[in-house]
């Protein structure tokens, strides 16, 4: 057991912490700040932040330097996750591109794709959307219907995607399309990289419970994409999608822990401000949440150790997802209990701005659904980890 980072890693932490302190405006740390910024303006501020971070050498911490990354260790990536969350740096505007598309291109992209896609993605010059879910194909990706038909050197795409994150801000979309007409299930699919700034692509925002429009629907009506803009080969989309989704396991949990712990501390502050901090039943609930949060931290160390040792995490990442998503959702149920009937009021309460936490509460409902629902994760743990029969 040795829970320290190497001297080189701690040096990186000091550099990063100093840079963050110098570059994050104080107002960003004010609870509720981002909730008060109009959605589009906030997006541009965050995109600009990504570019400054890139230019300062703090993007792609564990990516190879040839792609603009820093070439760091998994420990440095964990430190980066921890420090940026602690410093309340805004979350990335290019999450799905960074988490999924980039590593897939590094693994199986053509040289041209590697050269042209990864660096602008990392610098958030190009915002990438993911086009997987369809109205009739959610967890069951293989039943998707969006169709692509070859037309000379191009493919013409028609269909609809839903629950597309950042749809309104996207520049390009990596999307799973049925390119062999009449093909069934996993066969005949291709991963196409489609330009969203063209006439055949229409985006409609989806309004969430919280009023935010982070998700959208994307409609393709004779949208065109060069056949070369296909990742992993035409007709090979299923394998490409599976490889792509496998990178989710990179999430170690430390980012979630650090940011959830911050929410937790704010909830405790709210409890104090409302005079509920002496309520034994609420304290008990908060205690239970703390137990799960700390377990998430220990678990993140376990995962980081395995990553450093080069162990293939495989289906274990389903456990990470279950632990963080269920813990997060439970935390905001406790927050609801704290506010009681005043939880519904979208306004400062007793001089306390809890609107950011309230928005998080709505958001917490989605985390057990996207990225593989809790039901899907439990199937994976039961079948692939415990070996129970299908």
């Amino acid at each position, binding site marked *: 057991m040795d829970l320290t980072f190497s001297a080189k890693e701690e040096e990186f932490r000091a550099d990063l912490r100093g840079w963050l302190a110098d570059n994050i405006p104080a107002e960003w740390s004010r609870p509720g700040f981002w909730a008060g910024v109009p959605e589009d303006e906030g997006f541009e501020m965050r995109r600009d932040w990504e570019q400054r971070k890139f230019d300062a050498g703090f993007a792609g911490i564990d990516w190879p330097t040839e792609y603009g990354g820093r070439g760091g260790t998994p420990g440095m990536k964990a430190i980066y996750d921890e420090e940026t969350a602690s410093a309340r740096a805004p979350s990335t505007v290019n999450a799905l591109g960074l988490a999924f598309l980039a590593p897939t291109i590094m693994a199986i992209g053509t040289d041209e794709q590697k050269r042209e896609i990864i660096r602008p993605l990392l610098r958030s010059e190009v915002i990438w959307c993911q086009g997987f879910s369809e109205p009739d194909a959610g*967890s069951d990706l293989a039943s998707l219907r969006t169709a692509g038909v070859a037309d000379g050197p191009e493919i013409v795409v028609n269909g609809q995607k839903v629950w597309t994150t950042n749809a309104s801000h996207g520049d390009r979309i990596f999307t799973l399309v049925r390119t062999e007409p009449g093909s069934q299930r996993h066969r005949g699919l291709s991963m196409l990289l489609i330009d969203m700034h063209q006439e055949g692509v229409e985006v409609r925002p989806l309004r969430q419970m919280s009023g935010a429009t982070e998700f959208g629907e994307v409609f393709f009506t004779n949208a065109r994409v060069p056949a070369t803009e296909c990742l992993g080969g035409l007709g090979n989309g299923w394998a490409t999608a599976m490889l792509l989704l496998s990178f989710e396991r990179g999430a170690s949990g430390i980012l979630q822990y650090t940011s959830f712990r911050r929410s937790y501390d704010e909830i405790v502050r709210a409890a104090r401000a409302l005079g509920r901090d002496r309520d034994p039943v609420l304290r008990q609930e908060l205690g239970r949440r703390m137990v799960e949060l700390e377990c998430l931290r220990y678990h993140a160390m376990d995962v980081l150790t395995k990553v450093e040792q080069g162990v293939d995490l495989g289906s274990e990442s389903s456990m990470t997802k279950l632990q963080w998503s269920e813990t997060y959702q439970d935390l905001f149920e406790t927050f609801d209990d704290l506010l009681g009937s005043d939880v519904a009021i979208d306004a400062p309460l007793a001089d306390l701005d809890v609107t950011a936490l309230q928005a998080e509460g709505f958001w917490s*409902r*989605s985390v057990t659904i996207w990225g593989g629902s809790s*039901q899907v994760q439990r199937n994976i743990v039961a079948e692939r980890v415990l070996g129970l029969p299908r």
Partner: protein
Amino acid sequence: MFFALTDEQRALGDTVRDFLADRFGLTAVRAVFEDAAGDGHPPELWKAVGEQGWLAVCVPESFDGLGLGILDAQVVARALGAGVAPGPWLPTVLAAEAVRLAGSDAQRAELLPRLASGELVATVALRGAGRGYDADGVAVTASVPAGESAPSAGTGAEAGVEAGAEVGLLTGTASPVEYLTVAGLVVVAATEPGRVAATSASAGAGAGSDGGSDVGLYLVDPGAPGVTVTRLTSYDGTTRLATLALDGVRARRLPGSSTAVLDDLLRRGAVLTAADLAGIAREALTRTVRYDQERIQFGRAVGSFQALKHQLADLHVAVTMAEHAVMYAAYAIDAELPDLLLAVAVAKAKASQAARDATSTMIQFHGGIGYT
């Protein structure tokens, strides 16, 4: 032993449900929800609510009401909850209950017919922000206007005396108050320091009073001088909330009011809220079951996955128990059963939990196995 609704009661519930399905479905609800700047009080719906008599359920027949009880009112509340119908039905019904329970004959005659028909929209303001639902949660204080003496002991006992002459000056802030911006009348609870001794002899005016009278109920005109109404934005677009700030507002007192009447009123509100929640829970469960019967994933109906089935089965048990509990509590109030305090608490606790579980399950199982 007949633990069930009568045919008339069931028919009442069906009428509300059918009306909403035909004339105020989810699309209409959504329009109200989306119109955050609006008053959340669609006039065509309110007109129908009044015409149908749904506001008149608990009003005595002598005041143009139906003369029924909370058991009947909960039938309406449950159906309105299932349809997530917006509008000030519940606050108006509670205001009318306050007038019925504690008003003078003259006040009843003046107000109850107008409340029963929907002509007068009303609401109740019984507590301060973040405070409890009892006498300790009251955040408004009443004082006797300068130059007027408090009613002397015995006033309430003199038959025929117009108790409406009793007035108080109210100061303080109640919040959140439902549908305050559309109400023509607010029943405000206020503590009455120094009044206890003066009124204890006339406690008989408040039916079921426990002898104390440290809280009075007052009729406030929201347009009166000294009243400040501040809208609150709410995440729940199917209701509208506001703050009622009072600065020396002159208001008539309900002569029968007392802490006991306040508690009674709060219990009625709790049971009707529980009914609303039970209605929401049942509807959420029914819609989820229907969706999951039809939604196909991995080549089979999502509703055939056992993990989901078992959770829905547990939910069905919980929602059914909540329905039983609401029915029992409503009847316990009507029949003044000895365990009514426990019954109301059980109903509120069970219905709240069932609604929370049913709606979160609805979200998860519409997206859960369904959506990535």
